[in-house]
């Protein structure tokens, strides 16, 4: 039956958004999140400050080392912590967003109101993203505030711009996992199944994918000589980097390094040759903020595009679903 709908798909969006946001902010999950945010912020800053106190070299970007510094005792810096926390939080916010309505048997009652499904799904997504953004901004301000107190050095303008870029990229990265979790929550009626699949997918892309990529690139691009010597060929290396960028985790990490380590001049070979000590060091000339932004632009847009793609798949799946509960 050919049909053209009348009325705006955005009717009711603000109602759904404010209700979902209120739900998120008052949920137990949010309490846990707040503590996680505070503890991780404190931990990361403490580690970084310990490390920075031992370095006496003059550095224009001292403040940014708050985000990137690691110590020998704790080999985790703030950005890797964020790269780990944000997906978990995003999955926590999204995994029961749609199937939860079915399980509570509220879906058909809500959709019997004068709104389209578009508003429900988009409102839920925006509310999840806002919750994520609120936690990240809080964490960000906490770290900067602590940094000011403990280091006693104010950030310069360029550092502030870079830090804001970091914030935007983290939110986009969270958006990817929020959209993934919502997709699974549309596909599966059981919240537990949706949570397991989201986490499984995340582990696949962050932990298993880098290993698989090495095998695949070796199988495709290795030459007899390279196998004999155990060295990677250039082709193999490029293939590996290209494949690894399918994972949003790689995209996020490259964006982070590009933005927060101003001396990074190329991401052509991924992060392979940028080891933590280099990130702290002053190798190479630092780039202007605009140049760094240009460097990570492909990664940043790819992250945002991934969000849109996953949300679009979720949207189509949801529109086609039969609403019976």
């Amino acid at each position, binding site marked *: 039956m050919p049909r053209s709908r*009348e*009325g705006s798909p955005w009717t009711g969006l603000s109602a*759904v958004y404010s209700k979902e946001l209120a739900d998120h902010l008052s949920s137990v999950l949010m309490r846990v999140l707040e503590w996680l945010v505070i503890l991780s912020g404190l931990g990361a800053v403490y580690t970084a400050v310990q490390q920075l106190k031992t370095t006496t070299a003059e550095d224009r970007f001292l403040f940014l080392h708050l985000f990137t510094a690691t110590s020998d005792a704790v080999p985790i810096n703030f950005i890797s912590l964020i790269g780990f926390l944000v997906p978990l939080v995003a999955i926590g916010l999204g995994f029961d967003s749609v199937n939860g309505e079915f399980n509570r048997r509220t879906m058909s*009652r809500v959709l*019997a109101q*004068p*709104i389209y499904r578009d508003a429900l799904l988009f409102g839920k997504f925006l509310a999840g993203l806002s919750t994520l953004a609120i936690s990240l901004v809080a964490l960000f301000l906490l770290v900067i505030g602590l940094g000011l107190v403990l280091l006693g050095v104010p950030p310069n303008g360029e550092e502030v711009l870079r830090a804001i870029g970091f914030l935007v990229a983290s939110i986009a990265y969270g958006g990817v996992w929020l959209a993934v979790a919502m997709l699974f929550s549309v596909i599966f009626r059981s919240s537990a199944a949706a949570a397991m699949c989201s986490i499984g997918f995340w582990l696949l892309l962050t932990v298993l994918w880098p290993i698989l990529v090495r095998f695949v690139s070796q199988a495709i691009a290795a030459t007899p000589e390279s196998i004999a010597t155990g060295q990677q060929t250039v082709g193999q290396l490029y293939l590996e980097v290209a494949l690894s960028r399918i994972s949003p985790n790689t995209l996020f990490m490259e964006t982070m390094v590009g933005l927060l380590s101003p001396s990074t001049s190329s991401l052509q070979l991924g992060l392979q040759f940028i080891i933590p000590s280099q990130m702290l060091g002053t190798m190479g000339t630092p780039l202007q903020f605009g140049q760094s932004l240009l460097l990570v632009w492909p990664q940043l847009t790819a992250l945002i595009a991934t969000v849109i793609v996953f949300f679009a798949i979720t949207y189509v799946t949801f529109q086609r679903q039969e609403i*019976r*509960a």
Partner: protein
Amino acid sequence: MTSGDLAIDARGLVKKYGAAIAVDGIDLLIKKGEIFGLLGPNGAGKTTVILMLLGLTDRTGGTVDIAGHDPARQPLEVKRHVGYMPDSVGFYDNLTARANLAYIAELAGIPRAEAKSRIADALERMRLGDVAEKKVSTFSRGMRQRLGLAEIWMKRSQVAILDEPTSGLDPQSTAELLAMIRELKAEGMSILLSSHLLDRVQVICDRVALFNKGKVVLQGTVPELAKAVLGGGIVIEIEAVGDGVAAALSRVSGVTKVEPQAGNLATNKYKVFASRDVSADLAAAVMNAQGRLIRLAVEEPSLDAIYTRYFEEQSRAA
């Protein structure tokens, strides 16, 4: 009947899932201000019809006009004027009754100031005023159903669609709920309700449609259906003491059949089938046969009897 008098005008409604036909060309004409019952066994297609009327499921064929709009073309207009209470209705357990309704009011686009007074009024009317600030997780099944009705009342719907409103309720809650549905009708709402509990629903329905396997097999008022299925006759139950009562009863003119029923030791029970109401003659016949009449009752045609008889005949014909 012109279309202006109709709250719901659905003709030739069809729903197919692949090769399976869930709803097979049904017509439903529901007048303004009446309570119409969709009755039938589980899986007969009642809920599918309701979802198509609301525009929550796309229909495969047919036309629908509900509250003056087509749900496939103007879903928002339809949903603005139609209230819906799904089978085993659910609410947000972590919110209060008032907050649940406030969310729906916001979705329905009711201005906040007006929503506030409407919600208070609706909760009061459905006797939920005392528990308005309680979380819905503490509510019993009956209270949830009443909250569902309060939502419909708050929306000032022209048409209310209730899917199995009484399922899972104890007799007292059922009676309360049915009384409230009547109140909605008294306010001028047209009501379509579905149920598989025939005797409960019979009390409040003006007209009913019997559903089976995606088709409406019978439609009309309960007496009309009784006439169509049970024949024009009536059934009278008699309990009497005395020999020869049965023979005397069967001699009364108009009686077509006397069926002895299992009684207790002292009395005999009979079911008398007659072409017209012959209760006075039957009483006289018992007296004349030196019997003692203990009880005489004209059996009201019940939907249960109609329904059972109809399906018996169907299976016999097959």
